[in-house]
């Protein structure tokens, strides 16, 4: 084994001799410390390797030839080895970031830097409490001094504040150590641990002082003003050092002391950690300064680690597990936070909005994305798994408060990090960056390191299975070949996905699963064609797109909760990246990811209260034999309703659907929303034993569906933007599906799923056709279009087919699905809901009429004379969808029979229900009917054809009028388009019904957002910037915690 004394001796010798080496040449001393740090890191890895093969090796070394407690002992076990390896590696990376500073500032800075690392290593290794104090002081003093590499006023002031705060906390620590020595008679932690518990108030005071001394060094809210100022003003290399190496070492000291604490003390500090996590993130919400934001985030993450270590220990988990979970959080924070600080130093932009400079540099942007996404705890990064486990454990132990705090804090974190990422990806691009290699190198290493650690962790993680890796692999592979022409990538993606779908995905699935696999994966594959319309490489689409589709498949294929959640999060992330590609999609993408994360956290909480699933046996099969309580069902249900855009939580939907690129919108609307349907269906299966159609919960769900359908349709009517119209229409259709599912009957579910399939076809079709229109006309406002029937006949036919299908007019399949829903609603006696759903269908007519009329009929706009038909790549999916619609319209049995079989696995088909095509025979106790749909189809076709012929005859006598000829007839209007009939087309309806579509939901969410921001601003006021106030905070905080502890 490696003798840790040698490690320390190496650091010391180098630090002492660096001044002499420096006399030879500055570069010699710099490269010497690089070598030392790398060797030290290597020693850590070596020790780790030795211990892996030789786990029983003695890992404790004494000094001076005496054993502890007489002498000081160092321990170099697995955890220490990991920390030594990582901290020195990051020390090395940080040193390479500071290369230029070192060149300028001399041997002292180099020696000081090395001593920071010495302090950190010593702190990790030592098992003696006073020795910890000495190393803590070496670490702190070296850090104080190295702050001065940047000798501007702000960093000097921050340095003084830091030193005063550090001085106070180390004094408290020291006095605690000595007071405790009075009781224990030892300074060695291991000997101390073996003592029988001491229960006098004085000893508790000693422990408290010791603990609080270390705890304040961990920068807990609100006693952390000094740290924030420091992060903001110090050189970014130093800030990174403090947030990673420094904090990690002190955190480990805290961990070493934890077993000494009394449970009451540990509880208080754990709670304080959680407070720090939540409030740190809350205050970060309104930060505009990047470094300070990172400071808040850093204190929050440290709080999270303190909290997790404490909470999991308090719950009595084995230490190995506690450490593994904490290590997941720790590694993510180490890589990502130091990376982000370095990135701050490279961009040299303080204002978050100015981070758009990264747009000109996709490499840095990707690195930034990796760091940000990892910090938020998205898969496949270690923090994802750590948070998953923590929440599962909290759920099993019913630690609701802790769970709520953790999730709220995480959500706040998502908000500000994603906003920042949005600025970087979508802001106004500016100048280029100066990128010295010495600064790029550590960035690249940490991004790559984080990515590969995550990749292997995911591979090795139990209960995941190979399938879960595919989305990530697809993302990486398509990322690597992203420079290839888009057509080639499209073919590759279609081939890969089809093969996977056919040979891997479909075979193990039951009928219901296959159905959803076809909707989710099949539906998406068809739409890949649309992406092939781009010229050149069209970078950025395919990695996310393929990840999205694989993840969608995995949702159906999941056999454990973790697999499901992993796939779900990957899907969300991929969709976010796709939405973000839209030109003005910054805010829309942010809304999407915030609402999605909110949903995901609800889901996480819900899953934690659900019994475990058996690996290797699909969830949708297991669901039939399992049952869950009402609370997890509620949480999961809301989570899935968010994805579907149910009324109230639909706020993100119109923005995301309309601002994303057109192909993306199509996938979002036609496919992604069905993932929510799948989830909701699963929840309903899980609770199917307890609820029936007449339960209050299902009635409520039904009303949610009805109102979603109703308000969605109503809001669609008043849109000028065709995409917004389609977005609201989508929402409305999903409402019908919810209503159908809420019935909990065979017919209800069949009708809901029938509509789901239909919705995929017709919404995909309309979106594709309209994508072509937007592409050619360059606008999405309907009043700016007109008469496109002649220029784009295929698009017209597609939209016509689509809207016939949507509106439920015979002869197309939409009619069948609507009628099924009405019938099943009536059969369950929900007359009021039927009426409102029927009314919504009438409203749907209005917006659909508007869509086809204003865009395709009427007169062509002068500036749109030269528009052409859509590119073939947009027509292919349209053709496929049209064929699909025709097929199920003419032979409805090919879809309804399998649906009935699939639903039959969960709710058996009643005897009295039969159908053949559209010919539905009901003999239920409540409703009787026999309706021959086939006959009606011919009649209706006749009804349509006769007026058409008449119109064609009459058409010959019409006279053509120039558009906008009001301009010549009277005075020139200021805004000529307002005179167009298509502008504000349903103004008269708005007078009658407009009060229903007042943006109440928007107002609500705006209010929530403003509330949080002003709370954030108010809380930030405690950081007055005055060093004395900060000291006062520390003392008052200490007293407060002491009073909480209540020593008698």
């Amino acid at each position, binding site marked *: 084994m490696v003798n840790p004394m040698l490690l320390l001796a190496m650091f010391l010798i180098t630090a002492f001799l660096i001044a002499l080496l420096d006399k030879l040449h500055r570069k010699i001393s710099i490269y010497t410390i690089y070598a030392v740090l790398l060797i030290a890191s290597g020693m850590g890895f070596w020790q780790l390797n030795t211990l892996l093969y030789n786990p029983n090796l003695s890992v404790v070394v004494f000094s001076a030839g005496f054993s502890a407690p007489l002498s000081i002992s160092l321990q170099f076990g697995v955890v220490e080895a990991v920390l030594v390896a990582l901290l020195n590696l990051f020390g090395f990376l940080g040193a390479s970031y500071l290369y230029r500073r070192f060149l300028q500032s001399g041997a002292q800075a180099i020696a000081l830097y090395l001593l920071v690392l010495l302090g950190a290593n010593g702190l990790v290794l030592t098992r003696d409490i*006073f020795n910890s104090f*000495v190393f803590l*002081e070496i670490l702190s*003093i070296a850090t*104080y*001094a190295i702050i*001065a590499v940047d*000798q*501007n*006023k*702000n960093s*000097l*002031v*921050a*340095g*003084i504040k830091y*030193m*005063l705060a*550090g*001085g*106070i906390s*180390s*004094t408290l620590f*020291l*006095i605690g150590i*000595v*007071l405790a*020595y*009075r009781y224990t008679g030892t*300074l060695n932690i291991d000997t101390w641990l073996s003592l029988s518990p001491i229960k006098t108030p004085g000893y508790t005071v000693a422990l408290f002082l010791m603990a609080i001394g270390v705890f304040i060094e961990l920068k807990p809210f609100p006693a952390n*003003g000094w740290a*924030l*100022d420091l992060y*903001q*003003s110090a050189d970014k290399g130093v800030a990174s050092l403090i947030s990673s190496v420094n904090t990690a070492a002190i955190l480990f000291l805290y961990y070493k002391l934890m077993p000494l604490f009394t449970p009451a003390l540990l509880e208080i500090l754990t709670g304080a950690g959680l407070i720090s996590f939540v409030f740190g993130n809350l205050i970060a919400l309104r930060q505009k300064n990047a470094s300070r934001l990172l400071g808040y985030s850093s204190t929050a993450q440290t709080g999270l680690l303190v909290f997790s270590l404490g909470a999991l220990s308090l719950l009595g988990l084995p230490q190995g597990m506690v450490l593994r979970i904490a290590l997941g959080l720790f590694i993510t924070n180490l890589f990502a936070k130091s990376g982000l600080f370095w990135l701050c130093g490279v961009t040299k932009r303080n204002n978050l909005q100015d981070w758009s400079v990264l747009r000109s540099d996709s490499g840095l942007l990707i690195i930034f994305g990796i760091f940000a996404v990892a910090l938020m705890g998205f898969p496949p990064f270690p923090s994802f798994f750590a948070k998953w486990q923590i929440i599962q454990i909290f759920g099993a132990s019913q630690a609701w408060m802790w769970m709520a705090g953790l999730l709220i804090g995480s959500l706040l974190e998502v908000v500000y990090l994603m906003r920042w990422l949005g600025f970087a990806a979508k802001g106004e691009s500016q100048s280029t960056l100066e990128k010295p290699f010495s600064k790029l190198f550590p960035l690249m290493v940490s991004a790559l390191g984080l990515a590969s650690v995550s990749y292997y962790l995911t591979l090795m993680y139990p209960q995941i299975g190979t399938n879960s890796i595919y989305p990530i692999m697809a993302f990486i592979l398509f990322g690597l070949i992203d420079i290839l022409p888009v057509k080639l990538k499209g073919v590759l993606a279609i081939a890969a996905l089809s093969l996977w779908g056919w040979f891997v995905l479909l075979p193990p699935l039951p009928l219901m699963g296959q159905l959803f696999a076809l909707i989710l994966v099949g539906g998406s594959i068809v739409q890949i064609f649309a992406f092939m319309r781009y010229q050149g490489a069209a970078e950025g689409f395919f990695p996310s797109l393929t990840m999205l589709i694989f993840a969608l498949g995995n949702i159906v294929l999941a056999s454990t909760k973790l697999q499901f959640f992993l796939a779900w999060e990957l899907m969300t992330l991929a969709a976010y990246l796709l939405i973000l590609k839209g030109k003005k999609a910054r805010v829309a993408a942010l809304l999407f990811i915030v609402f999605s994360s909110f949903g995901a956290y609800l889901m996480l909480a819900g899953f934690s209260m659900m019994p475990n699933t058996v690996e290797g046996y699909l969830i949708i099969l297991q669901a039939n034999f399992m049952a869950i309580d009402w609370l997890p069902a509620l949480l999961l249900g809301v989570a899935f309703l968010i994805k579907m855009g149910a009324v109230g939580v639909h706020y993100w939907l119109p923005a995301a659907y309309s601002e994303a690129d057109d192909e993306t919108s199509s996938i979002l609307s036609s496919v992604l929303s069905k993932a929510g349907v799948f989830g909701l269906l699963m929840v309903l299966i899980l609770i199917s034993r307890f609820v029936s159609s007449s339960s209050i919960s299902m009635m409520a769900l039904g009303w949610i569906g009805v109102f979603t359908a109703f308000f969605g349709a109503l809001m669609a009517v008043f849109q000028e933007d065709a995409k917004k119209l389609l977005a609201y229409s989508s929402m409305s259709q999903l409402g019908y599906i919810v209503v159908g599912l809420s019935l909990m009957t065979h017919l209800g579910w069949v009708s809901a799923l029938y509509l789901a399939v239909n919705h995929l076809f017709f919404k995909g079709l309309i979106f594709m056709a309209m994508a072509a229109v937007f592409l050619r006309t360059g606008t999405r406002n309907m009043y700016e279009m007109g008469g496109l029937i002649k220029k784009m006949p295929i698009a017209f036919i597609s939209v016509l087919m689509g809207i016939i299908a949507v509106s439920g007019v015979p002869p197309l399949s939409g009619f069948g699905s609507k009628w099924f829903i009405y019938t099943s609603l009536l059969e369950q006696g929900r007359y009021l809901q039927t009426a409102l759903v029927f009314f919504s269908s009438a409203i749907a007519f209005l917006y659909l009429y508007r869509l086809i009329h204003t865009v395709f009929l009427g007169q062509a706009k002068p500036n749109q004379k030269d528009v052409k038909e859509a590119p073939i790549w947009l027509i292919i999916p349209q053709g496929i969808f049209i064929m699909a619609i025709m097929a199920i319209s003419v032979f409805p049995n090919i879809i309804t029979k399998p649906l009935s079989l699939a639903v039959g696995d969960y709710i058996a088909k009643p005897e009295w229900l039969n159908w053949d095509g559209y010919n539905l025979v009901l003999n239920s106790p409540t409703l009787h009917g026999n309706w021959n749909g086939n006959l009606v189809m011919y009649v209706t076709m006749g009804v349509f054809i006769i007026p058409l012929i008449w119109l064609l005859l009459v058409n010959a006598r019409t006279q053509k009028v120039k558009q906008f000829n009001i301009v010549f007839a009277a005075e020139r209007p200021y805004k000529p388009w307002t005179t167009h009939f298509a502008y504000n087309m349903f103004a008269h309806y708005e007078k009658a019904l407009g009060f229903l579509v007042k943006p109440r939901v928007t107002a609500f969410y705006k209010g929530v957002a403003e509330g949080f921001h002003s709370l954030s*601003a108010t809380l*930030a*006021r405690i*950081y*007055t*910037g*005055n*060093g*004395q106030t900060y*000291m*006062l905070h520390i*003392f008052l905080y200490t007293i407060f915690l002491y009073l909480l502890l209540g020593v008698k």
Partner: protein
Amino acid sequence: MMVLICGLLLMLIGIWAMLIKKNIIRIIIGFSILDTGTHLVIVAIGYVKHATAPIVDKAVNISQNAEGGIQVLGKVVDPVPSALVLTAIVIGLAVTALLLSFAVRLYKVGNSLNINDYEELKW
């Protein structure tokens, strides 16, 4: 006991100076007082009634035992806090020296030693 209370009082006085005085140099003096108080407390904790310094010389009774080893019979104070306080003093000195040089540097940059004049970083 008296020394212990004196040490604690010194600590409180140091804290008072750090929290009330506006001049950075005085704050640093407060810190020094806090430090000194701590050292007094440490030494006080090591005291044993009626004992001498832990140096085995004529002042301490010793006896030879059977194996030739020396048995210390006289009372000495606990040597551990004495050893610890030595380290603590040096560390206190280092922090104070650094604080003072920060203050010197800051005075050159900002031309003031009033801590209220340096509040630009906040919120």
